[in-house]
């Protein structure tokens, strides 16, 4: 379903993704694990037509996201790592907008929006502007929005960041349900090893833009001779803490915060 061969992405001097190759089968839940700045999000951005690779080939459901962008976009849905809501619209309006952009028929759109907003406990707040929401509520709305249409491939980039255990549970239950009933292929990244172990059938560990290990959670533990996935992960990627370079958008966001208060 997803095939990546010798993928490279360079930003000026810095190589974010360095010769990465992997394959995800149809109906598989695949986790991409790695420390901050390892190249996870960059890879997802290239797969979802937001960035152009420096080298290598990509294929989504047999389509090249570089040349058949529009066709490729019809195949996937994505929950981003960083915010992507319109703060000046209400929760309901954000869902509506998404539903229209993804061609969900009106009746289905309304029904699903209601179900999802209730599931993520935002129904009471549906007519409030998103800028009045707390961080957790915004995150829940992003997830609810991601489930409004059912794509062939679902990208989840650190979806549980800032979620409470209840919402986290809802999220993974729903992901598993979609995967089992409609064989949606799932490509996810996370920092929580227990989550990866719970849902992912196969895992790739990426560090400094290179894949250092691939396999089922079981296999990774065997390869490294460790008891838990967390230990295996640390053994593979070391214990030093990484800094992520702040992009232009992050810097702007900081400036904006200064002015909004």
């Amino acid at each position, binding site marked *: 379903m997803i095939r990546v061969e010798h993928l490279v992405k360079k930003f000026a001097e810095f190589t974010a993704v360095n010769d990465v190759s992997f394959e995800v089968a149809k109906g598989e839940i695949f986790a991409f694990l790695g420390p901050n700045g390892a190249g996870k999000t960059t890879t997802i951005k290239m797969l979802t037509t*937001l960035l152009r690779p420096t080298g290598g080939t990509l294929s989504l459901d047999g389509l090249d996201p570089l040349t058949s962008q529009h066709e490729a976009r019809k195949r996937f849905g994505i929950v*981003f790592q960083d*915010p992507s809501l*319109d703060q000046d619209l209400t929760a309901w309006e954000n869902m509506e907008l998404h539903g229209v*952009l993804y061609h969900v028929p009106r009746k289905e759109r309304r029904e699903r929006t209601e179900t999802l907003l209730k599931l993520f406990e935002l129904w009471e707040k549906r007519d409030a502007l998103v800028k009045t929401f707390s961080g957790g509520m915004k995150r829940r709305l992003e997830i609810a929005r991601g489930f409004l249409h059912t794509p062939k491939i679902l990208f989840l980039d650190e979806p549980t960041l800032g979620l409470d255990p209840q919402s986290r549970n809802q999220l993974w239950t729903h992901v598993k349900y979609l995967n089992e009933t409609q064989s949606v292929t799932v490509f996810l990244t996370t920092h929580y090893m227990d989550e990866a172990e719970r849902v992912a059938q196969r895992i790739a560990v990426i560090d400094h833009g290179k894949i250092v290990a691939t396999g089922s959670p079981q296999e990774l533990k065997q390869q490294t001779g460790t008891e838990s996935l967390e230990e295996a992960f640390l053994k593979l990627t070391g214990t030093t803490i990484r800094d992520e370079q702040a992009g232009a*958008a992050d*810097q702007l*966001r900081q400036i904006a915060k200064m002015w909004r208060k």
Partner: protein
Amino acid sequence: MKAIYILWLRELKKYSRSRAQIIASLGQPLLYLLVLGFGLGPVFQRAGNGSYLQFMAPGVIGMTVLFTSIFSGIALLWDRQFGFLKETLVAPVPRLQVMVGRTLGGATVAMIQGMLIVVVCLICGFRPVSLVMLPLGFLFMALIATVFAALGTSIGSSLQDMQGFQLIMNFLVLPIFFLSGALFPLGNLPTALAIVTRLDPLSYGVDGLRGALINASHFGVVTDLVVLSGVAVLFLCLGAWRFSKIEI
């Protein structure tokens, strides 16, 4: 088509929710109108050019539409910053439709803002010579709005952050305004200035507005219409091209 509509509607909703901003953006045109209109009025009259307020009102209307539309385009940068842009960029909708929806939304907002200024001008004592020509004036406002919303989209798509904003403001937006003949008549200018004003798309917009509202146009209303429509098509293409190249 539904995608264009919903993105257009989004711009209108955001506009209608920013009341403070609407009021604030009436301030600058009001200053021009009152201070320059009444301040320079006597000199203008003595030079034998009639009422300066009558002359300048179409210019101030043009200015308002210019500023509102170009900034609505550049507001793309805020969407990039708050992340909403990504949401529209990965959606299964041709980017052309996304761009058109946004741009038309911005143009519509600029039109509404321009209408408010028309009302302000009327209150200040401006009188259009003929009501029959009023729709033609609105057509020119719509054209100005489209031209500069599209230009704003091109700029917003090409910048990474707000750092280039001052540069754009001082070396593009303000010159477009000052060189358009919004504040002075286009006749008998020094050659250099005459050439530059002819290269400024807003000159034709303001001139068209004068033609429609006070029956005094320099280039002729037909020329104004043709040039503005041509530039609108050109800038829409430019905007669509720049927008299709956005990477995040």
